[in-house]
């Protein structure tokens, strides 16, 4: 009887009689086994980026074992980090992201405060509208937006298309609705007594926001900032549509349009560029993982 149980207990996990601890142990082993598989699947592309980025062009075209670097070299990194063009992409990306984060916060924090705390005519509808706006994807708006900005240029003579700063107008349409939405959630969870106390002490609405709400909801603010930054850093469709000159491009578009020349793929440099482009979000994620995840889950769970 006991030997039968042991046999059954081995790989199936459907066993009913074995001891609890043995079941548990096997479940744990299987969990680690599959988690390792999934982790390999998840990390394969970034690791492969790293491997390729350390290879010279000669080694890549020699078609040796693609999973191993035989003659590691930093020439791709040196090549990119000394190229003015690539640094320009990086600089444009950084500039756009920082400005967009600032604009997003300046718009969405006061709006979220007003929507969460100051009930006024139409505030509930507006909150729902903000949420709906968040569901409108970039691929629905890029054509009319392109035409709108072209017409704007014709009417006023201010040419915005093919300037990096046009993105400062467009990216907030992606970041502001979501950030407002999660800030509404965070602000609504602050107990009413706190701001009532502040008002009784003679604080103005603005002071209540800056002295009470922003410090208390700081985790939410960090999560929203991270979200705004990663969205503007990763955005690909809008810069592809709105910018074409090489000195106006941001990183993702720049790598794809300049490093891929016709049929000639300089894969060592492309992978290096991709890795450097992926680095800022990855670094932020590594240090602020909990905020990152809080922001991620807040979008759908905070009501």
């Amino acid at each position: 009887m006991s030997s039968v149980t042991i046999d059954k207990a081995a790989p199936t996990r459907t066993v009913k009689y074995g001891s609890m601890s043995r079941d548990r142990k096997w479940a744990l082993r299987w969990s680690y086994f599959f988690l390792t598989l999934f982790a390999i699947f998840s990390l394969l592309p970034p690791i492969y980026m790293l491997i390729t980025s350390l290879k010279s062009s000669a080694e890549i075209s020699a078609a040796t074992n693609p999973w191993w670097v035989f003659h590691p070299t930093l020439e791709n990194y040196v090549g990119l980090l000394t190229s003015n063009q690539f640094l320009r992409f990086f600089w444009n990306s950084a500039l756009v992201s920082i400005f967009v984060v600032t604009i997003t916060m300046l718009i969405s924090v006061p709006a979220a405060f007003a929507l969460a705390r100051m009930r006024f005519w139409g505030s509930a509808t507006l909150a729902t509208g903000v949420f709906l706006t968040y569901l409108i994807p970039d691929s629905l708006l890029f054509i009319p937006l392109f035409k709108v900005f072209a017409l704007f240029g014709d009417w006023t003579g201010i040419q915005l298309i093919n300037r990096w700063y046009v993105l400062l107008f467009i990216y907030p349409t992606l970041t502001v609705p979501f950030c407002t939405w999660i800030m509404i959630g965070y602000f609504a969870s602050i107990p009413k007594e706190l701001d009532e106390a502040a008002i009784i002490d003679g604080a103005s609405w603005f002071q209540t926001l800056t002295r009470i709400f922003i410090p208390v909801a700081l985790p939410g603010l960090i999560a929203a900032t991270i979200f705004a930054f990663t969205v503007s850093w990763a955005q690909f469709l809008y810069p592809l549509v709105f910018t074409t000159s090489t000195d106006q491009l941001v990183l993702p578009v720049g790598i794809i349009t300049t490093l891929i020349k016709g049929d000639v793929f300089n894969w060592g440099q492309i992978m290096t560029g991709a890795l450097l482009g992926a680095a800022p979000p990855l670094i932020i994620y590594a240090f602020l993982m909990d905020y990152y995840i809080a922001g991620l889950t807040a979008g759908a769970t905070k009501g």
Partner: protein
Amino acid sequence: MADVALQPNRVGAAQPARKRSGLQKALKRKSTAAFLMTLPLIILITLLVLYPAFYSLHLATLNKSMQRFVGFGNFEFLFKRDTFWLVVKQSCIFAITAVLFKALIGFIVAHFVHNIPAKGQRKWRGMLLVPWVIPPAMSTLAWLWLFDPSYSAFNYTLSFLGIGPIPWTGDAAWARFSVILVNVWYGAPFFMIMYLASLKSVPDQLYEAAAIDGANWWQRIWYVTLPMMRNIIAITTLFSLIVTFANFDIVRILTAGGPLDHTHIFATWAFRIGIEGSDIPLGASVSLFMVPILAVAAIFILRDVNKRGNEA
């Protein structure tokens, strides 16, 4: 002691006298302040979201040079083209298959992470979320290189197993598989993290009760976990359906719609026609076909969000 107790009373007594005159003004001030605070948001949404959205309805009724009104001419033209129906089919295959696998893999992985001791969970979760953190344009480049026709690292590995070179992006069926694979790779971590958060909120007593009643692992999932997670599964799936349906980066970089337009989805085809082919009205008409499915998903999400709002 008495002094302290009296203080709030005095404030309470003094307030109404002062309030009566200032009440209306305060109310007015409050709503004005609130309006001013939301004004930038309202302007942004109206000018850069609502206006373009309705403008694209107008654009869709113009001819290529945008000087003549053609009514539904663009749509009639689209309906007669085989490529359009190919795009519709591929968009549906792409979105439904990708979301299904993302949800399934996310669910399984979330369970495994939930299974292991709490101490190690952070590390695993951290590794498994990496695909979601890397900008998709960057990671798709890595996949493009992994799928390279002559230097593919996958084909190199598979050749040891005697499996011939696979045309990852060269053959229509394989290209469809590849874009879905990359999309699943990118999106599954999002499901994993959402499911993990909701798994943690299922009370342990329910599992204990189920275990005492003799439920096996499958019954525990089917009768305890799934009903408890129903809400979050529904909302995550709908979110992901919207995002996947509107996907652009992955298909654009990996196949650019090829081979022979077999992997085009609405967004990439609209880009090809509207921006690269500079037929803006036709491109706008193509992207408008995303609206019905987005609207349906949005209605369901909104219903769910409102319902939860009322419960809280």
